[in-house]
């Protein structure tokens, strides 16, 4: 496994859970399938972008900031596409930002060498 693949897997899993949490909002339960698919795709895109960034830039702080930025940006796009007057910016962007941060942290920490004795 490499960093982009880890980002993809993590983004996909967190995206699915993110989408499933819509079940707690009865008003949108009828659109569950679309929400889960959309959320998963969003997670996959965020994951691969953050994973590629982690491959190029080896910095935990920058990785987390980039992850947060990508998570917020993609979530903003989802909000902007919402039909009707309520775009749920706060409800979608806040968890989206945290998911991006988690992926940013994970992809930066992945594959760090450990000290070992070799002769």
């Amino acid at each position, binding site marked *: 496994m490499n960093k982009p693949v880890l980002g993809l897997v993590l983004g996909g899993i967190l995206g699915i859970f993110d989408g499933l949490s819509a079940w707690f909002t009865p008003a949108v339960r009828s659109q569950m399938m679309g929400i889960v698919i959309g959320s998963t795709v969003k997670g996959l895109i965020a994951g691969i972008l953050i994973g590629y960034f982690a491959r190029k830039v080896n910095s935990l702080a920058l990785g987390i900031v980039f992850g947060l930025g990508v998570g917020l940006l993609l979530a903003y796009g989802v909000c902007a596409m919402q039909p009707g007057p309520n775009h749920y910016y706060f409800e979608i962007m806040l968890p989206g930002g945290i998911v991006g941060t*988690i992926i940013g942290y994970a992809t930066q920490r992945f594959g760090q060498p450990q000290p070992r*004795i070799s*002769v």
Partner: protein
Amino acid sequence: MFLSDSALERLRVAADAPDLAGTRYRLLGKLGQGGMGGVFRVEDSTLEREVALKVINVADPSLSARLLQEARVIAKLEHPGIVPVHDAGTLPDGRPYYTMKRVQGNRLDELVNDSVGIADRLRMFFRICEPVAFAHAHGVLHRDLKPANIMIGPFGEVLVMDWGLSKLLAEGIASADNGSVAEERAADPAAVVATSHGSVLGTPGYMAPEQRNGETVNQRADVYALGSILEFLLQDAQPRGPARLAAICRKAKAEDRDVRYASVADLADDVAHFVDGLPVSAYPESVFGRAWRWIARNRTWILLLLAYIVVRALLIFFRPR
């Protein structure tokens, strides 16, 4: 007739200085003095570089043999953590000498102070273990490991010095020996061999009990010394080394050598486990202890996931109805 102190000092230095006539070396100064001989700063006139020259104090056959043995042992150990031997020969007065790289830096006991954090100290410890483990893998025991014999270079390089008490374990290397040291073939690198002349050689505080008592020694004697070095590195570390590191020191310094780590690699692995937040063999833990360590090790993950769950829960709780 009386001589002034400075004149006496000059005479003492001149008398102490080796006669390098007929060699390619020119004396520049003295670097240090040990029990067996002195180390001098000399210039290699052929290669035009400064090197260190080690020579015994008096032309004693057993000391000569030991110096030559030391040079041969070091020459066989090609490792970045071991000072390379360049040349060996005999002075006009019959004393043997060898030259080696002149190491510039600080001794470990002079370098470690409050400003060096525990992570840097453990990093140094790993780099000390590497050449010792390498020497063991090549059938050589150091037998005098202590902070004063470890140099830290200006770029953080670690060099294990003074292999004057080193001892051969493996037959291949022992065959090159001049016979001054009684050797036995050790099929297992951890096996015990006879000490030279049954004499006690080493430094109190860093010497394993079996070495102190003049008994046979194996690589666990070096493990004991490394345990003492780890203890030295941790004694005034900030933050103070936790109980698990203290347990590693205790295991490495066990009076009964069978209780100690079987090899330097095992000791370093246990320290690496500590660094990685994994269980260490020297410190059995309860279930709660393990759980707490797991939480401490993965605290960032746990905090991020908790933040996500809390945010989700709050959004659900306060959702518009």
